[in-house]
């Protein structure tokens, strides 16, 4: 996810609206915002590790997260 985000950084606009509260969006630079999804995935992964839950199922969770991430990046382009 980190690698794909790094690649997507080349194609994304300078600012992306990844954070919002209701209908108010807070655009942030792509260089900063593009790492938000991988960081969330990293937090989820650490939670799995701390709870001794590293099995095949969490690979599925990360595939879903990756799909959501790519979908949102394609929408922003």
């Amino acid at each position, binding site marked *: 996810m980190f690698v794909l985000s790094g690649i997507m950084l080349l194609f994304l606009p300078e600012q992306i609206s990844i954070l919002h509260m209701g209908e108010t969006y807070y655009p942030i630079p792509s260089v900063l915002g593009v790492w938000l999804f991988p960081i969330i995935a990293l*937090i989820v*992964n650490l939670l799995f590790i701390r709870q001794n839950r590293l*099995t095949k199922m969490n690979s599925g969770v990360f595939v879903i997260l990756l799909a959501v991430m790519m979908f949102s990046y394609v929408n922003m382009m």
Partner: protein
Amino acid sequence: MKHILCKILLHNKTHPVVAASFMIIGAYIGYLIWYILDSYLPAAAADNGYVFVSLISVWLCAFWGIYQLPDQLCMNRRIKMILCYPVEAQTIVSVVAMRIFILQSGICAAFLYPFFLFEAHRRREAVLAMLFCCILTGVMDIGVILFSILLSRFCAYDIVGYAFVVFQYGSFLVLAWLAGNVVFALWGYIAGKSQAVPKEQELHVALWVWAVALLGLTVLIMALRFAAEHWYVRGYLNVQDFRHREAGKRPTTSHITHPYFLLEWKRVTRNKELIFFSNIKNMITVMILSRLLFYNFSQIGLTGTYVEELFLLMSCCSVNTISSTAYSSDDNKSCYAFLPISGQRLFLWKTIQGFLWGEITVFLFWPILICLERLPVLSAFLLLLYGTSMNYVCSWLGILIDLKMPRTVNSTNELLHGNISKVLVLITATILTVGEIFLSSRKWLPVPLLPFACLAGAGVAAGEICFWRFCKGVFYDTDS
């Protein structure tokens, strides 16, 4: 010795990669928050943004302390193993508290380090803010430990487990309320503040706050030393008696006709915290969760008749602790691999038990919905059907996730909070319900929302039953 003690008590060694990951996460989140504050805070209030960040970091530290300290000090089964060695109670308390405090200091540092980058000319204030957050966190930690020791020592052994669940969950609610009201009210105050406080007044207030914090810390440390020395061990043993007080009781001879039912019934009734938590606590969780989901999804246009009711019933079903801890809370799990027990049938009985316990919550909320909304008879029965089918779906899924990703814990209490299998069930159920509402609201289906939701729920439940029937091998726990 403290290092060995720490390894025995907490039973986890932080790998350098995990520690590095935590540092990256902290550094990123801290920088992101400061960037947003720096970019979107009105210029007049920009100087006070660090107060808001300090509040968030203290709030997170308090949350972590309340979650970890009572569990690791009063519920941890490993402490019993070392009590027979010449280890002082104060050493046990200090080892556990220091370990948690180090992590909390890391949180404070992660949130406040960008202060040095964004406000390079205010380094003295940055250091003071960091120090103050650490002192405040220390005061709160000692308060939590003291309260836990008092609860464990002075509550009767048959209610002490419930007292801890109420204390922890009540504190989480208070923190959530504080985050929703006090922190954001203060944020509004800071954002709207246009006039700087006079320098003398600022110094006067700062001196008072520091004096009170340091005095509080000193008094609490002295109180903690006294409590740890005189009450801690007896309190800890009192908490252990909550679960095992009937260990010496001789079981009566009986003929077991339904062994799978008995196994599962014993698993649930033995873990008294689970039953208490699943019913009492879930009431509040369901109300908060359903409102949160309804509010957020209505903002993106997912509205319509019965949407609120569907979210409420879906929340009832997805927070089923009995099912999401089906294997993790089962003390007999290690015996199943070598006993002639069918993993498939055991899974079925676990699902049935989880379903029945979850149905209590559904049956509690369903009449309330009927009374408050004055629903037509057909809609009321369709809602009950939806609740029942979703309850089975969520129960089944929770048990499957817990079977495939079992969790090793030091105490049953650890299973009650922050259980990731429950979160996964909630996410799946939300996706299913939102999908149903989305399809219905776009008029892509000829059926109204409620009958469609019932059909979809029943369809998924039928699919799960077929999967259970034909995929036998999935339900055997090969790790135990």
